[in-house]
């Protein structure tokens, strides 16, 4: 019988390798903060313009999540919406297929 799970195996390998690379860099790279590249980018803007990061004020006033917890809650909410969409539709398709 033909092996049918090549892509699944590749995906697992890719994810495991990704995790391994992270473990390696986080333990060997000194000064790696793993902050967002968005913030690193903003830092470079500050360096290029010679203006400190704090001096960049929002052009349109903006609500900021008061803490990292609330931010991660809202990000999880975003992922949840996606998860419901994906899971719901796959379930719907599986149901359709069974009925047919």
């Amino acid at each position, binding site marked *: 019988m033909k092996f*049918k*799970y090549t892509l699944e195996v*590749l995906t697992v390998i890719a994810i495991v390798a990704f995790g391994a690379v992270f473990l390696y860099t986080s333990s060997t790279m000194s000064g790696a*903060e793993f902050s967002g*590249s*968005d*913030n690193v980018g903003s830092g*470079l803007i500050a360096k290029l313009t010679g203006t400190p990061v704090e001096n960049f004020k*929002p052009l349109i006033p903006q609500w900021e999540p008061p803490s990292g917890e609330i931010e991660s809650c809202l990000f999880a909410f975003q992922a949840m919406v996606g998860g419901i969409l994906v899971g719901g539709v796959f379930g719907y398709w599986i149901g*359709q297929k069974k009925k047919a």
Partner: protein
Amino acid sequence: MHIMEGFLPWQWCLVWWIVALPCLMLGIYQLKRVLAADRDALPLLGVTGGFIFILSSLKLPSVTGSCSHPTGTGLSTISFGPWITAVVCAIVLLFQSLFLAHGGLSVLGANIVSMGIVGPLVGYGLYRLLRDTSVNIYITVFLVTALADMFTYITTSLELALAYPAESGGFVSSFILFLGIFAVTQIPLAIVEGIVLALVFKYIIALKPDILIRLKIFSEEKINAARNEI
């Protein structure tokens, strides 16, 4: 890939909004047409759009010692083209601007252009090139996804370099600096994202090949070949 609120001069905010708006309008028009023509397109939109929601919320660590997130736009680009993808991205980015302080309303145009328009457009170009060749469907999905992801971050670098040319070396040296932050971080993420979305596409083919054929996303022969392949 978010440019933070306040970090882009208003002139550039305006430029990118002007670029983004017609694309969004075209996307909304196309979306209405596609959904009116085929009711089965809606679940497919749900799955492909759902992955944009999920993947763009995952901040993953990378080899540069900073974190970034995949875009997840590949599946939607292949299924519905770049303009409809831009509409889905605009919804995600609006949510992130309003509630997460990732990006902002003034820089939303620039962020839509990078994540929703240029990335998917480049991916879509590649998809159109590969669609009618003998290249395997899964390799096509992988390449389109990874490329759309990479070009999103390359575009962000470009937008920032245009707004902030370096004093010595000007636009080019500034572009290289921003690429070093955004694009290099993104390489491993783009590869993993490509593989994951290729796997997802396998399940879409397994469950609902008829919608892919009806929307002429891939030819029937190619879909059938892919079902037997892996």
